[in-house]
Structures are given as structure tokens and as C-alpha cells.
């Protein structure tokens, strides 16, 4: 197999690289070149021009290599078959990956390397995976660019906290109610905005997200304003709390019921399995809906709203269901967040959260469920593991994002598998099933 090669003029190549290096120089000189250090109670300026030099040289060489390599890309028509084969192979690989991921997730608390820290990080990751899956319904399937998804997350968290604090309802009653309220908010917010498309929808949902946060911040009597709500009841194991009780006669705590020593880890593990269940429910619900007429209508609306309408699909109601269902899952995740933290405040529901969740969906490949997991793992774990890199953590993180988007502009796993196949997956067309 021969790769086609677009020849490029060496002079152009160098000019391009020099331009990139110049840009790097302009940026690096003030950012890296000068450094303020404390010297005996005073601030002094030191220079690090050697670093700047290394950086600029790196950019120059990197750009040379990148441009030269990209002249071999994209593959020409002859390489189409190769691309197909990669596609086929990859979807099989992805299924294996999903199975292994699920097994790992199920066994995680009992693996030798797992500690409280590992389970905590995994729980946090699963919240984002669940949020990603929820938003994937809205953005990936229905194609509605929602920049205010955090509003529903917040709605779920505050609904849960208020219901549990004010009415003393148990976790298992508050959880579905929180989901319901968030879903209703989704439908209420959806009504006025769903006539808008693309960028306009994005801006308005962004605004709604901020409005909800500002309401939370200012409605002091109910939400506690910037102080937030604390003392949110922790979940119980179907009525059995995780408490170091030592009642002799009656069973009143989880560890007694199972004849265990009390350990703070029990609750952590319970919370982990709780969010794992919630996330998996979100996933299976979505996978199933995608194969139903409703899910196909979402995708059809994403592809072409006018054609969908001409075939009798009601765009408003169909989009509202996507908005409502996505919001419900966001709300459930929010309720879990509230019960896990025991404390919530508007700080947790800023635009950055919306952006992170959206980045997970887009980076994963719109509509891809496994893509969300991979992207969430990258986005949440990379900064976590990157702590040793200290001040360069976010730089590395940003570079990773840029590289991924350059390498796979449509997301990590952007291959869409049809919801229904007539022929078995087979190179030569195959027999009808």
C-alpha cells in the first residue's frame, strides 16, 4: 500500500515553522522569560532566557515535523479500504475495552491496589461519566448544543438537599424526586429555547445555566446563598445507616447487620457502587432508547430537522423529551453529589462544570457512549495524576486536548454503529439475517 504524498516546497516549510517559532517567542518571552522570586523580603526579577530558547526551538522543530508529516495525510482514495478496515477492527476492539472496563469497575473496591483515595477518585470520575452520558442524549443524539447542563445538576443537588433537610425524607425517596424536578426544569427551560438552533441555543442555555446559579446565590432564605447547604443527610443502606453505633440488642447500623467491624470505608464503597449503578442505568437506558423510534427521531432531528418534519416527526416534543431525559439524569447525578459531599454551594455549579461535561461529550465523539468514558477518564484523571507536574499541569492538560482534537477532530471514538443492521457485519455484504 503506497501513501500518496503531496510535495511541499522546502522554503514554505521553513517559513511556516519560523512563523510558529516567532509566535512562540512572543508568547514565551513574558510568560516564561521573566520570573519574580522572593529575595530577602523583596521581589526580584530573574530571567530564564535559556528556557525560552529551548521552547522556541522545540516549537520550530515540532512544526517542521508536523507539517511534513501532514503532507502524507489524508489518505487518498486507494487508502479508503484501509480506513474501513481500521474502522471495523476498532469497533471490535472497543467492545472488548468496554467489557474490561465494566469488569474493572465492578471489582475495583476489592482489587489489591485500591485504597480510599482510589475509590474516591473513581467515584468522582463516575459522576462525570454519568453527567457525560446524560448530556450525550441532548448533544450527541439530539444535536442540541446545551451549554447550561450544570443547571440540572444543580437542580438535582439542591432538590435533594432541601427535600432531605426540610422534609426529612429518606434518600431513596429524595433521589427520584430530585431527578423528577430536574427533568421538569429541563422541560420548562426547553419550551422557550428549542425553537432556536445551533449557536443561538448554545448562548441561551449558557444564560439559563448562569441564571440558575445566580438564583441559588441570592435566594438566601431557601438556598443559603453563598454559604450553601450543609448537614445533608448521608445515604443509608436501605434504612441501615453507616454509623459507629454499638447498640447491643438491636441492629441499627450497617456493620452490625453484616457482622462487620465498623469502618469508614463501608460508606465510601457503598457510594461507589451507588454511582456505578446510577451511571449504568443511564447508559443502558440511553442505549436502549437509541434503538427505539424516539432515539432514531432524535438522531434524525440532529441530521436534518426539515426532512424530519416533512416525515411527520414533531420537532418540539421530540427535542423536549431529549432535554427532559438528559436533565433527569443530570438531576440524579446532582442528588448523588449532594449526598456524597454532605455540603453543596453554588461554587460547585459554575460554567466550568458545564464546559467540562460538554468537553467530555465532544472529546469522546458525539453520541459515543464508550467515548464518554474514555474522555472522562482523560479529562478527570489526567489532572489528578498530573499533580507532580505542579505548575505545568494545566499546560500539559491543554496540550493533550489540542493534540487529541488535531488527531481526531470528530472525537476519540466517533464511529457510529447503526441502531439496526440488516446484514451481519461482514466484509462481503453477507447474508440477510
Amino acid at each position, binding site marked *: 500500500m503506497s501513501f500518496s504524498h503531496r510535495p511541499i516546497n522546502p522554503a514554505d516549510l521553513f517559513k511556516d515553522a519560523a512563523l510558529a517559532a516567532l509566535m512562540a517567542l512572543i508568547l514565551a518571552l513574558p510568560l516564561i522569560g521573566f520570573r519574580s522570586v522572593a529575595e530577602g523580603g523583596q521581589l526580584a526579577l530573574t530571567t530564564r532566557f535559556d528556557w525560552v530558547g529551548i521552547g522556541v526551538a522545540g516549537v520550530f522543530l515540532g512544526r517542521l515535523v508536523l507539517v511534513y508529516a501532514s503532507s502524507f495525510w489524508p489518505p487518498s482514495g486507494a487508502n479508503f479500504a484501509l480506513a474501513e478496515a481500521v474502522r471495523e477492527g476498532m469497533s471490535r476492539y472497543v467492545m472488548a475495552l468496554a467489557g474490561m472496563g465494566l469488569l474493572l469497575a465492578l471489582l475495583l473496591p476489592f482489587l489489591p491496589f485500591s485504597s480510599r483515595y482510589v475509590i474516591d477518585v473513581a467515584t468522582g470520575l463516575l459522576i462525570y461519566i454519568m453527567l457525560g452520558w446524560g448530556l450525550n442524549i441532548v448533544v450527541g443524539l439530539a444535536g442540541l448544543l446545551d451549554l447550561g447542563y450544570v443547571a440540572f445538576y444543580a437542580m438535582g443537588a439542591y432538590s435533594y438537599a432541601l427535600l432531605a433537610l426540610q422534609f426529612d425524607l429518606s434518600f431513596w425517596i429524595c433521589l427520584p424526586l430530585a431527578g423528577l424536578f430536574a427533568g421538569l426544569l429541563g422541560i420548562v427551560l426547553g419550551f422557550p429555547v428549542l425553537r432556536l438552533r445551533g449557536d443561538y441555543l448554545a448562548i441561551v442555555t449558557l444564560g439559563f445555566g448562569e441564571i440558575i446559579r445566580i438564583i441559588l446565590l441570592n435566594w438566601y432564605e431557601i438556598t443559603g446563598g453563598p454559604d450553601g447547604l450543609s448537614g445533608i443527610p448521608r445515604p443509608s443502606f436501605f434504612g441501615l445507616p453507616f454509623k459507629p453505633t454499638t447498640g447491643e440488642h438491636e441492629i441499627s447500623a450497617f456493620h452490625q447487620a453484616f457482622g462487620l467491624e465498623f469502618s469508614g470505608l463501608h460508606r465510601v464503597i457503598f457510594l461507589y457502587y451507588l454511582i456505578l449503578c446510577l451511571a449504568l442505568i443511564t447508559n443502558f437506558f440511553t442505549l436502549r432508547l437509541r434503538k427505539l423510534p424516539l432515539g432514531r427521531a432524535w438522531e434524525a432531528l440532529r441530521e436534518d430537522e426539515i426532512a424530519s418534519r416533512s416525515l411527520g*416527526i*414533531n420537532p418540539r416534543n421530540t427535542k423536549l423529551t431529549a432535554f427532559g431525559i438528559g436533565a433527569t439524569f443530570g438531576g440524579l447525578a446532582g442528588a448523588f453529589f449532594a449526598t456524597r459531599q454532605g455540603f453543596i454551594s453554588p461554587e460547585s455549579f459554575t460554567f466550568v462544570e458545564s464546559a467540562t461535561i460538554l468537553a467530555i461529550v465532544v472529546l469522546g465523539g458525539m453520541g459515543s457512549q464508550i467515548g464518554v468514558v474514555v474522555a472522562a477518564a482523560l479529562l478527570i484523571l489526567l489532572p489528578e495524576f498530573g499533580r507532580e507536574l505542579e505548575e505545568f499541569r494545566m499546560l500539559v492538560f491543554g496540550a493533550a486536548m489540542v493534540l487529541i482534537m488535531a488527531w481526531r477532530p470528530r472525537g476519540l471514538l466517533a464511529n*457510529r454503529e447503526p441502531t439496526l443492521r440488516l446484514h451481519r457485519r461482514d466484509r462481503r455484504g453477507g447474508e440477510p439475517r
Partner: protein
Amino acid sequence: MSAAHLSGGAPPLLNVEHLSMRFGGLLAVDDLSFQAGAREITAIIGPNGAGKTTVFNCITGFYRPDVGRVTLNTDRGPRYLERLEGFRIARAGVVRTFQNIRLFANMSVLENLLVAQHNHLMRASLFSIAGLLGWCRYRRAEKAAVALACRWLERIGLMDKADWDAGRLAYGDQRRLEIARAMCAQPKLLCLDEPAAGLNPRESMALSELLQSLRDEEGIALLLIEHDMGVVMQISQHIIVLDYGRKIAEGSPRAIRSDAAVIRAYLGENGTQPLPPEVMEDVGQS
């Protein structure tokens, strides 16, 4: 108004009365009235910009006409299409295709045909509840929907490409798929906007046959916008000619072929000069 082409005393399937549509200073459709009979192919022809697509957009609910009434006579009485929301018009039995093909490009060919059966399947799935629970009520409906889709795939010769993304199909295949998709929505009236545009002569022939079979075997009515006079003259029962939004002629293919106003519209004002041969062919005079 002549309704002589319609057989019997029954009301026509589609009755368009005094339709007008204005865009700013431009009167795109000007007091247009016509009828389309059941089990007939009615063609709308006219030069580019005559307002043909705009008429379709008014009938299928994409534009709300300024003036006029569009009546679809169904078994359950007349439906006034100009008052219905767009998606309800398909449910009433009028489905269209588009001048620039509008397929769901990233969905498979089969999925395109299933989306067209959305309303029926949605009811069978009890708005997803039966579907989520996997009741056999829904599974049976889905199987029937796939069977219907397969019948159309067979008919348009795309059976072995059923799992391809629709956007990967060749142009002619996309045109036929769009028609099949519209048929899967089980219309009583199918509106086709330039279905032969961009097809080669052989494909045009096959298209003519397909359209005739839709009329004769499926028993539906067709409203056809088309520039290919070969196709129009061969298959339609009734032709309406538009120019600058107005109806300048209407009648059987034979009558239209020799209509002076039609020839003038296609050639400008000096229609008295003898026509160059390729133009004669284009207006169907041979």
C-alpha cells in the same frame, strides 16, 4: 376553472385555491388554483424561479401562504393543510422530497426508512414504554416496519447497501432512497421536487417507471416538479405551467406541448421565431 381532467364527481384529492405567497416585494406565487386527482400524476413545470418549490413549501407547511386554501380530501373529510403545523401534514397524508436531497446522511439506509415510519412505530411502542420494556407488541411492529423497509429496498435496488451510511450512496441512489423514504411514511399524495435532476438518461427512464408504478400499484397521487420534459410528458396526466408565480397554462401533455404561452415562457417574448432544435426537444416538441 377546468376540472375536466378529473374523472367522476368526487372531490379531487388536493384542491389548491387562490394561493398567493409574497417575499418582500416579490410575488413568488400569484393567485394560483389547481387540483390534483387521486391515482394521477400532476406535473408542475415552469422556468427556474417560477415559484414551483414555493408552491410545494406552501402545501407541505414550510411556508404559510399569505392568501389561499389548500384542501386535502381524505376518507375522513377535508383537511385544510394551510392551517396545519408542518409535521401534521405528513400525518394527514402528504409527504415530499426535496430539490436538494435531504437524507439523514450519517444514519444507515435502513434507518432512514425506519425514521419515516416514526409515528406508526411511536404509537406501537407506547411512546417508548413498550419499547423499553421489550414487549412483543413493539417487537412485532418493528419487525413489520423492517419488512416494509426491505420491500422498498428491494424495489429501489439498495438491498445490499442497507447498512451503509446514506451519505455514502451515489447520487442517483440517494434520489431513489429519498423517494422510498417518503413512501415508507405511507402518503396519499407524494410531492416530488425535481426527482430527475442530475440523473443520466438511463436513470431517468428507471425513475419514470418507478413513479408510474407508485401511481398504478400503490394507488397514490403524485405531484411532480420536473424539468426533464421527457419524463413529464411520458408519465403525467395533467400539467400545470407556472411563470412568475402565475399559472399560464394547464392541461393534458398533448395540449401543453402546443400551447403558445408555454413556449413563450420558456423562450422569452419572441416566441414567434422558430425554435432551435435542442430547445424544441426541451419543451417536448419533436
